């Protein structure tokens, strides 16, 4: 009835290669978050702006990022842009797709956080001689990041997991790509992907732990 023989040793022998893949996964996730957070802050400010020239493009970004599948966004970055003569490597396409997605979701998280900060905080900064940008940077941003911190860590985990979609555009150096490659050569599908799953789980847990530690260090108030 059940004739499959597990070959865990073979899977564990591939562990160093998979760990290399996990590093690439982390690299893409971290980069997509750093760039995504930066864009999301700008989008959140633009979404709250009076000028429609700022508001509309930001709204369009958020609408597409949140209401279409991440896979579609990565496909568009790789194959879609190719139709216009812009060829992105699988790595760049995956990074671009996840960053686009991150920025869209985080924009709304940050926008909510911005609304939670009383306008009088900026007023107090301005009354001390600060310009609009300085007041935003020194008074609003740190408070916004605190309010948005937990949802942002969720997005970080989501970014890690989304990297697995890279395999659909030919990404072969991240954790899923490496696992897929090993699978094609050994056919130890269950063992290899179970191990990959465990690694994803460990990375996500490590990120959440690091985030809690950072929150404890940064947000003492």
């Amino acid at each position: 009835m059940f004739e499959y023989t597990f070959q865990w040793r073979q899977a564990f022998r591939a562990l160093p290669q998979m760990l290399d893949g996990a590093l690439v996964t982390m690299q893409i996730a971290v980069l997509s978050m750093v760039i995504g957070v930066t864009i999301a802050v700008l989008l959140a400010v633009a979404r709250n702006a009076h000028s429609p020239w700022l508001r509309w493009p930001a709204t369009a970004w958020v609408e597409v990022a949140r209401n279409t599948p991440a896979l579609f966004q990565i496909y568009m970055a790789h194959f879609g842009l190719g139709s216009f003569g812009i060829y992105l490597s699988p790595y760049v396409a995956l990074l671009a797709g996840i960053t686009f997605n991150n920025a869209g979701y985080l924009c709304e998280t940050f926008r909510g956080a911005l609304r939670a900060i009383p306008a009088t905080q900026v007023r107090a900064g301005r009354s001390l001689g600060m310009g609009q940008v300085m007041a935003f940077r020194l008074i609003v941003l740190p408070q916004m990041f605190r309010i948005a911190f937990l949802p942002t860590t969720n997005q970080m985990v989501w970014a890690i997991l989304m990297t697995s979609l890279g395999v659909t555009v030919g990404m072969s150096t991240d954790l899923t790509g490496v696992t897929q490659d090993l699978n094609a050569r050994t056919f130890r599908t269950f063992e290899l992907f179970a191990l990959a799953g465990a690694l994803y789980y460990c990375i996500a847990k490590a990120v959440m732990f690091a985030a809690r530690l950072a929150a404890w260090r940064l947000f003492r108030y």
Partner: protein
Amino acid sequence: MIEIENVHKSFGALEVLKGINLTVDKGEVVSVIGGSGSGKSTLLTCINGLEPINSGRILVDGIEVHAKTTDLNKLRRKIGIVFQQFNAFPHLTVLENVTLAPRKVKGLSRQEAEEIAVKHLTHVGLAEKLNVYPGRLSGGQQQRMAIARALAMSPDYMLFDEVTSALDPQLVGEVLDTLKMLADEGMTMICVTHEMSFARDVSNRVAFFHKGVMAEIGPPEQIFGNAQHEETRKFLSSVR
């Protein structure tokens, strides 16, 4: 000197200041009293340029606040303002709250800014709370911190906007004592207040605002003892 000349200010169709004229000399303490919606607080925010005006002009040491060429950020260093809501920056300690603007706006070194901050925080009785976050302070302490924060910019003028209104009655005294101390030291102050005893005891002049108009202004003895305007008498009898 602060010179307010025929200032009009509207929020949409609602005119909240209807031709205000007032001159405040160096070293003078002027209290502004009046009912809610009479335009008292709006006047203060117009003086330091946080609100634009519709017509008239406001001059601070001869500089027109609302002129297009005026560097408002620079001018605001001369004019400290403390609001009804303390507006403490919750992510910064008391010391950081007070040193932030001197460091980032005036460009002082951390050490210089901290020396000034400690001096002012000691002055307002918060020397023991330097490394505490505002969330752990009482309302009165937060308000005194806000006063120290404004003073750390070494302003020539201080504007106080109902600074005791959000405080529990038992905490009002400590903030009023701080204001009295500043007045005794010769700080030029405009205080929007509902504390009539403070207005009577500390001010050189008291202005009564009614429906966007400065209905009456004079020394405290006149306003509290022999008010000329019917609305002033009505207001004072309602708050006594």
